[in-house]
């Protein structure tokens, strides 16, 4: 009996292959987007650990100072287990060159495979370097071998080759490997100028990368929710359509419990099939997006993530779990109803019954409550999680409010309508609304996410580029190795440039947390360009007299000290805050004094860094002259154009992932709409047939359907825009501040929103095309049958 019953149940899917496809694809998409995001997150976290163990940029103690390979040999010959690292960006090049020593570098991670003698020889000879696929490497560098395990933007070379590429005799630092003995001769005796630096606790970096991952997770959840709308619609429909079958089966003696069990088994089977497909999909997506994520993380936060993906059980199991949960949520309600269904309950589809005022009312109240909650959390909440709770409440609230609002608009339209046909059109649209509302909610969410994220990215881009122009006002930045070279450099530059602006800085404790203190001269470069968010009157004049300090936005937000307040600059130095400047991309607190005040506060910091003002056309020649004349350290000479280009590249990569997820979400929403329209198209024949019988042509009916879909999509898009703007505001003013410590102005982008609305309408048109075409071409006999089959 089981077999016969199961056969009867499954026959439904054979007769409705499109519905089956909808269900499986919907589930696969939902699971896929979720697992994809999880895979990216899991991989990135795994890589942090590996990267920390290999290059030890964050986790290993290191030795810093004015170092050469001779110092490395000195320490090694004294028993110190150190490995040298040179890390720099050659002039005019965007990739970072990382010099390592393959013999002493930790062997458990990103060290390239040198098992081939020819490769090892070439690597040591400087004829071979390694980089990730897609990292732009200039032709001036030797042969490049592409490796997936290297973070994008990084070129790995032998330490000697890296010195040649960067034109330096120095090394940046030595990492102290864990096997250090405890009876080593003291560092101070071996290298008096060098210092040991303990790894930072990684709190800031950890927090920043966490926020990035939380961001991705939120996106994954959103995509999953949108996917679930599809699954819910498909499952609900399948149950509704099979009601007559259930009744027949029950009447033939199949117990309700057995029927429920069979249907539950069916759900489990769908979970496995849809989940497996989704995981494959997610893996593909993650593999595609991971290089961008890696670039973002290394560029923005300096965290190393390899571009390769490994199959970790955590995320594919979570994929199945999510698929299961999704199906349980989507199908549970139907199962529950089925279990309680009287044997001979009317087997009428509930297309009509769904349009209950009560549901709309409840949705409306629920939506309003959620929106109110979002506002409360935005106002009173603190922390990143509050930011995301606010986002969630906002989106869900808006989605829930959509059907009541659309219903009200349609009701208004119906009341205003003149003529039977128009009235029917409005009324029929309203009648379809319940069946479409889930798909429309999905569309709303996708559109709102697009508007919100697009606005955020646009605002960020505009602010960031403007800020870069301001902050990088000088044309050339140069750093000498020591004071003697700095003096020589100044003498050399005197007369060749319009201005030499020394920049001095030191690490200090700002309001009790690690930060940087800088000194800069009073110059129009700063007066005219420095981006101040908040300042006291005559800020530059007062600063020039040696009073007060400027602090960055991060420090101001963290401590709540804005202009006029006092700030603790460490070592008992308290100063008035004269102004607050924006400082994107830097997690640490920062304060700026005049040069004299800085030297008075922190003695013995030599002036070795200079910002040079020079006519832009003369920059290349001057840069060449400086590097030919002076033996500068790696990154000792940076021109403004390269620096800006590099920063903007990082920025674009940062949001490439977001943009890709945006498009995917919109696709899923479009698919949901298509699925709903297609199934509704068959379900609502009983409503269409009478109108056809009254004389309306199939063409007219089809076009009316198309118009309806477009109108609904357009209304949804109109509602999505304010939702999206609210989302952007939460992202910029709440999430950003919590995650990064800076707030960005919201810049409206009406053109972009209009384009997006157009896309929504196009998506609706595409989604409606097939059902409309079907109606148009429907054999009249099928329409006539409706009357014959009327129950």
């Amino acid at each position, binding site marked *: 009996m089981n077999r016969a019953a199961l056969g009867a149940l499954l026959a439904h899917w054979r007769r409705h292959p499109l519905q089956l496809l909808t269900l499986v694809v919907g589930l696969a998409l939902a699971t896929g987007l979720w697992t994809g995001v999880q895979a990216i997150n899991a991989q990135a976290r795994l890589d942090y650990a590996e990267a920390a163990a290999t290059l030890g940029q964050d986790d290993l103690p290191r030795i810093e100072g004015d170092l050469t390979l001779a110092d*490395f040999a000195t320490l090694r010959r004294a028993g110190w287990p150190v490995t*040298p690292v040179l890390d720099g960006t050659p002039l005019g090049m965007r990739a970072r060159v990382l010099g390592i*020593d*393959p*013999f002493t570098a930790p062997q458990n991670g990103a*060290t390239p495979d040198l*098992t081939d*003698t020819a490769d090892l020889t070439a690597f*040591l000879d400087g004829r071979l370097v390694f980089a990730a696929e897609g990292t732009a490497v200039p032709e001036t560098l030797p042969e490049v071998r592409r490796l997936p395990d290297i973070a994008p933007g990084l070129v790995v070379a032998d330490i000697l080759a890296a010195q040649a590429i960067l034109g330096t005799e120095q090394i940046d630092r030595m990492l102290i490997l864990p096997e250090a003995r405890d009876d080593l001769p003291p560092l101070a005796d071996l290298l008096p100028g060098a210092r040991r630096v303990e790894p930072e606790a990684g709190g800031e970096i950890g927090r920043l990368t966490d926020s990035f991952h939380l961001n991705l997770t939120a996106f994954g959840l959103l995509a999953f929710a949108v996917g679930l709308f599809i699954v819910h619609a498909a499952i609900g429909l399948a149950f509704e359509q099979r009601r007559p079958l259930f009744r027949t089966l029950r009447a033939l003696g199949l117990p309700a419990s057995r029927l429920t069990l069979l249907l539950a088994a069916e759900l489990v089977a769908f979970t496995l099939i849809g989940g497996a497909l989704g995981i494959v999909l997610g893996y593909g997506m993650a593999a595609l997006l991971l290089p961008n994520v890696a670039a973002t993380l290394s560029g923005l936060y300096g965290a190393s993530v390899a571009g390769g993906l490994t199959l970790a059980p955590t995320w594919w199991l979570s994929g199945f779990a999510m698929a299961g949960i999704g199906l349980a949520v989507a199908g549970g309600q139907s199962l529950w109803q089925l279990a309680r269904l009287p044997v001979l309950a009317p087997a009428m589809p509930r297309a009509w019954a769904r349009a209950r005022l009560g549901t709309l009312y409840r949705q409306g109240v629920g939506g309003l409550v959620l929106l109110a909650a979002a506002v409360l959390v935005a106002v009173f909440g603190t922390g990143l999680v509050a930011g995301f709770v606010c986002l969630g409440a906002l989106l869900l609230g808006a989605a829930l409010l959509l059907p009541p609002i659309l219903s009200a608009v349609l009701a208004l339209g119906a009341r205003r309508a003149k003529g039977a046909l128009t009235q029917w059109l409005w009324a029929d649209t309203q009648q379809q609304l319940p069946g479409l509302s889930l798909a429309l909610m999905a569309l709303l969410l996708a559109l709102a996410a697009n508007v919100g994220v697009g606005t955020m990215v646009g605002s960020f881009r505009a602010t960031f580029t403007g800020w870069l122009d301001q902050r990088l006002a000088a044309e050339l930045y140069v750093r000498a190795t020591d004071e003697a070279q700095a003096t020589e450099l100044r003498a050399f530059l005197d007369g060749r440039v319009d201005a030499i602006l020394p920049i001095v800085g030191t690490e200090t404790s700002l309001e009790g947390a690690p930060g940087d203190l800088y000194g800069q001269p009073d110059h129009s470069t700063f007066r005219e360009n420095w981006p101040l968010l908040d300042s006291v009157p005559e800020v530059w004049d007062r600063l020039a007299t040696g009073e007060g300090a400027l602090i960055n936005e991060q420090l101001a937000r963290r401590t709540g000290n804005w202009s006029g307040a006092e700030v603790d600059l460490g070592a008992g130095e308290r100063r008035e805050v004269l102004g607050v400047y924006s400082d994107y991309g830097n997690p640490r607190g920062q304060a700026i004094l005049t040069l004299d005040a800085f030297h008075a506060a922190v003695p013995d910091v030599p002036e070795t860094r200079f910002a040079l003002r020079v006519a832009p056309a003369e920059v290349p020649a001057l840069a060449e002259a400086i590097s030919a004349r002076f033996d500068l350290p790696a990154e000792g000479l940076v021109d403004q154009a390269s620096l800006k280009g590099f920063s903007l590249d990082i920025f674009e990569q940062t949001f490439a992932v977001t943009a890709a997820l945006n498009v995917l979400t919109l696709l899923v929403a479009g698919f949901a709409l298509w699925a709903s329209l297609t199934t509704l198209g068959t379900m609502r024949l009983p409503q269409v047939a009478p109108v056809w019988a009254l004389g309306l042509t199939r063409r007219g009916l089809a076009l009316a359907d198309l118009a309806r879909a477009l109108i609904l999509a357009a209304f949804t898009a109109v509602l999505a825009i304010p939702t999206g703007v609210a989302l952007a505001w939460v992202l910029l003013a709440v999430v950003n501040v919590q995650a990064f410590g800076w707030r960005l102005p919201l810049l409206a982008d009406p053109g972009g929103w209009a384009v997006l609305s157009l896309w929504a309408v196009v998506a609706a048109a595409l989604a409606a095309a097939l059902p409309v075409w079907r109606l148009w071409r429907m054999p009249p006999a099928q329409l006539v049958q409706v009357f014959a089959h009327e129950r």
Partner: protein
Amino acid sequence: MNARILLLALFLPVAALAQGFAGLGQETEGFTLPDPDRDLTFPVDHGAHPDFRTEWWYVTAALTGADGRDYGVQWTLFRSSLAPGGPQVWMAHLGVTTPDAHVSGERLGHDETGQAGVSVAPFEAWLDDWHLVSDDDGIGDLRLEARTAEAGYELTLRAEGPIVLHGENGYSVKSASGQASRYYSQPFYTVTGTLHLPSGPVEVTGQGWLDREWSSQFLEADQAGWDWFSLHFEDGARLMAFVLRGDEPFRYASWIAPDGTTTPYYGNALSAEPMGVAEVEGRDVPVRWRLRLPQRGLDVTVAAVNAQSWQDTLFPYWEGPVRAEGSHPGRGYLEMTGYE
């Protein structure tokens, strides 16, 4: 996989061949080949020969502790040239053996970073803080220091006899088809110093041996490994003997009289039979041998002080102190490679 495995393949060509690296850079083109007509000259030949593919400075010492127990010490600095005129890479091995424990260690380096190298005047061979150093350009008085986190040593080596040349004038043939190396030893060291063991320091005395060998030629493809003996007999004589295990074993022995007079013996003059195996790291390794050199009336049983003297380096091998009993009682060192 990483660079180290490859380096090992280069440094231990026999082992490498046995490991299936056959065909890996067998050509010697561009490298200098050993020349039987060239006399070795010192101190220059104590230094590195970068025109040759591979080279080593190999110290072993069979020691007795103040506690009366047997100890053994090994220290090796390998040099390998990756290509003719190309980068020189260096590897150092350390071994410390007690009757019930064995500690091994390994370091890698590149001479262009200054991390490793050999200087002639004064003589010093070093990698990191592991070094074999003299106050002058000779190798008569040496200090040897090396240690890992677990164990190490500080030893003084004083030569009480001359340097000896193996084969013909220091030209040591390694196969029937003529592969060869330059090979000399200083087998007359008296050693004193301190071992640093996990249990604490131990003062030791004993006898040491320095091997110097360089070549550009790989061994025959069928040669799967070697068994190498260096023995100090109580009557003052020394023996260096090796068997290269191949389709046809290649045998050689240098009989070193107490005054340093060295007589080479080839082929069947030497017989070396395994007498007993021990399971070491999952392999059967012959840790007990019968060595015979009838022309010198030698018939001894050579047995490991510690059967588990396993050098747990990236490419592992067996190397440890031995005792000889029979016609010529004595002590020495045994190295065995290529046991799978």
